[in-house]
Structures are given as structure tokens and as C-alpha cells.
């Protein structure tokens, strides 16, 4: 079953073409990687999917629902979670609040119930706290629930960002360079971890990454972008030997 489908998506920043004719067919349960040099338009694609930018042309559908034209909160409420290349936590809020905020769309009480703490307020708040604590336990952050997010060490901030994305209860998880700033040992752990959350939360994952080790190690399919265009797509083994990909990454081969 196709979960996310992009057809002929183009995006321009002024006169600059950031994404040219992007197509994607992501089936439920896939783990797909997008690679490409800096400026290839990878993060722009995440921003187009989640509605931060509105695609200049083309169509993006989630379970058949058109996403182009929807706002970020409408799209993410359709169970799309994401992380950011540069960590974007709510820095001055507590770890628990960071996770609780992402429950916004799932919390069912009206403004009036909120103003007077009546009706469903109590039950819903308790449910959100319980679920947030469950996520923090999974990510080994529960002992830091009251800590201010910015005081956490880098690795914990990365974990918290994923926990926050999972609080949306996503079907589709978009990871933007999850291994940025990690050493090889940490990357090994991260690979195991991504596989594990994929099983545990029944996720479809689309990830952007520069670390070839991670991409080649866990992705089932890889898409290579350069200058907004798709260079190649296929399983890791095929991508590794694709001459066009080598050229984009390593420059042109020796003459003769």
C-alpha cells in the first residue's frame, strides 16, 4: 500500500530551482534514505512534505490525501512526525513539556474545558502525561523529565527530538540527518535504534543522511539527489556502484 506519493514536485526559491521533478512512492513499512551533496534539496523536500513550504508545482499525497496547500499542523496531525537537521527543541521548556506539546492534536478538550479545567480536561491531561512518561522511559530520559531541554547533552537532545516526534503518534517519520555529529560507535547504536523504533512503533521512515555507513546499513531503498534532480534510485548495492552517483559525490573520473 502506498503511504506517501509525490508526483512531479517542483519548488523554486525566487528564480532558483531547489527541487526539480521530484517523484516518490513510499509504501507503508518502507525505510528509505535520501542522499545527496549539500544543497541538493534534501531538507527542502522534508519542508515541502510537512507544509513549511508550499510546492510550486506537483502533488504530494498521504494515504491519498493531498498535502499541498495544507498547513504544517494539519499535515503533522495526519500522523507525520519529523526531526530537524539542527536540533529544534523548545529549549527553555522542560523535557516533559517538549513531549507533551506534541500531543496537541490528540488532546480532545475544548477551550472552555481548558479555561475552567472541567469535563475531559483531567482525563486527557493524565493520559498525555502517562504517554509522555512512557516515551521518555523508552528513550531513557525519564529521570530528566523536569530538566530544561537546553541543559541536556547533545546526544540526549537528539533522542528527545525523536521522542517528541513520536509523541505525534506518527505513521510516517521523517528523520533529517539523525547521525549528524555522532562518532562511528554512536552511529552503530543509532542504526540499531532506528530499526527498533521502526518495529516497535510500526513506522514508515524516510531519512536524510550524509553518513554513508548508516544509509547503506539500514535503508532498503535509496534516492540520490543533486541540484534538485533525482540522479538515481534503488537498493544500496546498486546505488554504490552507480557511475552517476560516484561522479556527483567524488567528481568526474580520471580521463582515459
Amino acid at each position, binding site marked *: 500500500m502506498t503511504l506517501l506519493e509525490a508526483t512531479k514536485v517542483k519548488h523554486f526559491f525566487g528564480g532558483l530551482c531547489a527541487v526539480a521533478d521530484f517523484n516518490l512512492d513510499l509504501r507503508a513499512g518502507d525505510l528509505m534514505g535520501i542522499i545527496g551533496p549539500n544543497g541538493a534539496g534534501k531538507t527542502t523536500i522534508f519542508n515541502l512534505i510537512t507544509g513549511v513550504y508550499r510546492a510550486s508545482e506537483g502533488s504530494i499525497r498521504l494515504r491519498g490525501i493531498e498535502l499541498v496547500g495544507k498547513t504544517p499542523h494539519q499535515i*503533522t496531525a495526519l500522523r507525520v512526525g519529523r526531526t530537524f537537521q539542527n536540533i529544534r527543541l523548545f529549549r*527553555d521548556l522542560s523535557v516533559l513539556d517538549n513531549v507533551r506539546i506534541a500531543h496537541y492534536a490528540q488532546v480532545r478538550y475544548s477551550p472552555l474545558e481548558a479555561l475552567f479545567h472541567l469535563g475531559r480536561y483531567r482525563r486527557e491531561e493524565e493520559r498525555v502525561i502517562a504517554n509522555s512518561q512512557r516515551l521518555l522511559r523508552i528513550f531513557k530520559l525519564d529521570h530528566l523529565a523536569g530538566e530544561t531541554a537546553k541543559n541536556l547533552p547533545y546526544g540526549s537532545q537528539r533522542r528527545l527530538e525523536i521522542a517528541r516526534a513520536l509523541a505525534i503518534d506518527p505513521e510516517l517519520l521523517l528523520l533529517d540527518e539523525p547521525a549528524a555529529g555522532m562518532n562511528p560507535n554512536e552511529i552503530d547504536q543509532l542504526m540499531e535504534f532506528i530499526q527498533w523504533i521502526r518495529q516497535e512503533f510500526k513506522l514508515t521512515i524516510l531519512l536524510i543522511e550524509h553518513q554513508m555507513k548508516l544509509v547503506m546499513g539500514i535503508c532498503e531503498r535509496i534516492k540520490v539527489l543533486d541540484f534538485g534532480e533525482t540522479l538515481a534510485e534503488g537498493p544500496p548495492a546498486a546505488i554504490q556502484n552507480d557511475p552517476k552517483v560516484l561522479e556527483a559525490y567524488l567528481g568526474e573520473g580520471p580521463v582515459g
Partner: protein
Amino acid sequence: MNAMLRNTWERVMAQRWLLPVLLVIGFGLAVAIPEYNLFNKYVQLVMMYVGINIILAVSLNLVNGYMGEFSLAHAGFMAVGAYTATLLTQKVLPVAAYPGLFPVAVLVGGLAAALLGLIVAVPSFKVRGDYLAIITLAFLMIVKSLIENIDAIGGPRGIPGIKRLTTLPWVFFWVVVSIWVVRNFVYSKYGRGVLSIREDEIASDLMTVNTRRVKFLAFMVSSLFAGVAGALFAHLLQFISPRVFDIIKTTDILIMVYLGGIASIGGSILGATVYTVLLELLRPSTVAALLSWLPAILFDPLNEHFIRHLGVWRMVIMPLALVLVMLYWPRGMMGLREFRWFIPKRDLDAQDRPVGYGGRHDAA
């Protein structure tokens, strides 16, 4: 000594049952003070101003503290509440026969201001920071000149002879209601939405927070209570004119918020109380009385050039105080910290933390 004080304070704050007890005692006092003249009329008047200013500071803190915007429109919302309620008590509601109708007028005044708050929320969808501050300033000026140009409500002359319906028990009642509602709002998914907008609006939107809806609600609740305070203010001062609700009034409220500390209800209560009492102490007659022990050779020139003109000097001293507070004491008395009593118990239990981390849930 300091540690001992803090220890005692924490032990008192841990007793949550004290809050309702204090509320009952407070209400009893609010009724008894005017009834038996426990304090003189002047002190009673100051107490009522303290209450009204608490409502103003707590409500402005929602937008300027929790949401991190810089709204200058608060006096404008106050004006709308004041004029609406006054017209109701003068022309529509038979308050002379039924004084119990006064809270209805206050509430309608608040709702009228809330309606306008919705309109001010709209530019905040697109604009933030300095630019939004300028838009709210423009809104304040529009409200003022509109009132000045409507002759039916007195134009620039204002409305004199308003019945004095604001009493200490009613002020106490509205203070409690405003604190309770703002606190409830802050500790709900909408309140957390407001905080996440302050932190990172795009990330907040991407975490499913409907930022527009949250902004609408925050501006509405904030202006609702500004209107309530305006209605109480009009029926205490017994005279309103557009000049009463100008930028100076907004500045006063800003100082209370930043002095008390942003994103803290407890801070706003402290800030409003300290500031109001300080202003009263700075009245020429009070200062003259306080300094009368000075020898005449010092006192006379001081009195001649400074003390007698304190009304004017105030316009210099107070904005200067605002600048100094924001520069050197940006956290104010308890910025980003909260009285333990105001934090819902389940929130405290879920993330018990020592005092002094810097997050919103720091308890004091």
C-alpha cells in the same frame, strides 16, 4: 538565613490546602474591611487599585510573557471594557435598583474587549516582534482617537459622574477569577502551545500545534481581563476619558509585568502590588511628609524643584525604570518561576525539580 527563609517558604508552599483557606480569609477581609472601616478610605482605595493592577498585569503577561510578544495595546482593551461597562450601567442596566447587575456590566465590558482582542490577534499570524509591537501601538492610538471623535460618549471630554460600583469584595472576586482562568489556560494544551510559540513557532506548528487558534485564544483571554479591569477601574475612578487610557497606562502595566517577571502569575501579582504601592509612596504629599525631618535649608529647595513636580517627574522616572529593569533585571522578581500553589498537582508530580533551572515549571 537565606537558606532558612527559603526552607520555610518551601514548606509553606508545599501545603496546598493553605491556598483555599487563604482565599476564604481573603474574601472575608475584603468584605470586612470596608464594612468596619478596618483601614482608612485612602488605604482601601489603594487596595482596590492593587487588585485592578494585578488583573491587568496577569492578563498582559499571557501575551508579553508566556507568548513572548510585545503588545502595547493593553490600555486600549481596558478602554473598551471601561466604556462598554459604563454605558451599560448609565444607560441600559438598572443598577441603581439592582446593584447585583454590576458584575454583568463588568463581564460584558470584558467580552467586548475580548472581541477586539480577536482582531488584534490577526496581524500576529504574519508579524512578530518589533513589528507586532508597532501594530499594537497603532491599535491603541486608533481606539483612543475613535473615542475622542464619538460625541455620544463624551468625545475628548470623557464621561464624568460614573456611579461608584466597584467595591473591595468585587475587586477581590475578579482578581481571583482572572488568576484562576489565566492559570487554567496556561496549564492546558493551549497554554503549552503558547509557550511553544515563544520558543520556536515553526517547530511548534510542526508538532501539530494549531498556532493561529492558540494565538486567538491567548489574545482573547488577555484582552478579556484587560476589559474587566477597565470596567472596574471606571467604576472606581468615577470618570473616564480617552486620556486615561493612553500609552502611559500601557507603560505602567508593562513595568508591572517585567518587574514581577515574565511567564509567571506569581510574578505579576508581586509586580503589580509593589509597583502600585511604590507609586502611591511617590506622591508629592507622601514624599514631603517622609522627608520633612530634613533641615529646611535642604528640604525647601528639594520641595520647590522636585517633590512638588513629582507628577511630571514620574513620566521620566517610570519609563527609565522600565528600561533599567529590562536591561539589568530581565527576569524580574520571579521570571519563568511560579508559586508552587498555582502549578497543578499532576504537573508537579510528573516533573518534580529543584528551584532554579530556568524552565517554566520551576516552583518557588
